[in-house]
């Protein structure tokens, strides 16, 4: 049972983050969109993406700080490099084409009752579950 409390508490923190971003600058806390537009803005003028870099910095700082303070073991990913590359490509391609990921569609979109987000979240959750089934039990 105790494993449920951190999950719930962490979820609430993510929700509060999304609220702070909407309250302060009126933006959806969608990580795929924020990160892609931030990268894209590197080659563009005028640069209007400063807030995105601050958000991403906070995101990465959270891990840096907890690693530094608690000296947790660095989690390793039990996958080969080709699998990691293919997965990264699919996640990037899919979240850009589908206009969002777990945060933008799954949290911000569903909580606004967006039909697009509800559909997208249903699809990527189901497809991810099927993918795990195939890779863990069939291949």
């Amino acid at each position: 049972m105790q494993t449920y409390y951190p999950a719930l508490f962490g979820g609430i923190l993510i929700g509060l983050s999304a609220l702070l971003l909407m309250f302060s600058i009126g933006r959806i806390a969608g990580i795929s969109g924020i990160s892609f537009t931030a990268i894209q803005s590197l080659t563009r003028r005028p640069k209007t993406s400063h807030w995105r870099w601050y958000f991403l910095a906070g995101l990465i700082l959270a891990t840096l700080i907890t690693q530094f303070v608690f000296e947790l073991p660095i989690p390793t990913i039990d996958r080969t490099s080709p699998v990691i590359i293919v997965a990264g490509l699919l996640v990037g391609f899919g979240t850009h084409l589908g206009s969002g990921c777990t945060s933008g569609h799954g949290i911000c979109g569903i909580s606004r009752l967006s039909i697009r987000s509800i559909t997208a979240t249903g699809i990527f959750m189901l497809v991810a579950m099927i993918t795990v089934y195939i890779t863990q039990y069939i291949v």
Partner: protein
Amino acid sequence: MLKNILVLFSGLLFGCGLIVSGMADVDNVIGFLDIFGNWQPNLILVMAGALVTTAIGYQFIFKKSKPLYSEHYHLPKKKQIDAPLVIGASCFGVGWGLVGYCPGPAIASLGNLDVQTLLFVFAMFFGMMVSHQLQKVAFNDEN
């Protein structure tokens, strides 16, 4: 300046939420997605906690005519379910199921300074650019 500090803090909160909840740990995520096998359902509560908090909070926020530091709320205008949404979500699902990283945890985990995460994030940005270029071409064809 306060604006940027608030946004930085929002990113910190998001990252802490991912770490505390277990979403940043790919083994946890794969366990959650493994509904046909050894299912670990606790990550449902991440989604539930975030959704309820956001859904309630948005109601109060949208009562204000505009955000603190912007002239209006920046919300998606598309309402229709179209092919890019369905195909994109499907591709994303396969990638998510293969490793257990979605964009948030992947970028937050850059703070672990490990090569695997870096590789994933590079590939992810490359995938985003491919989709971006494809959509540009498709869009020009229609005109």
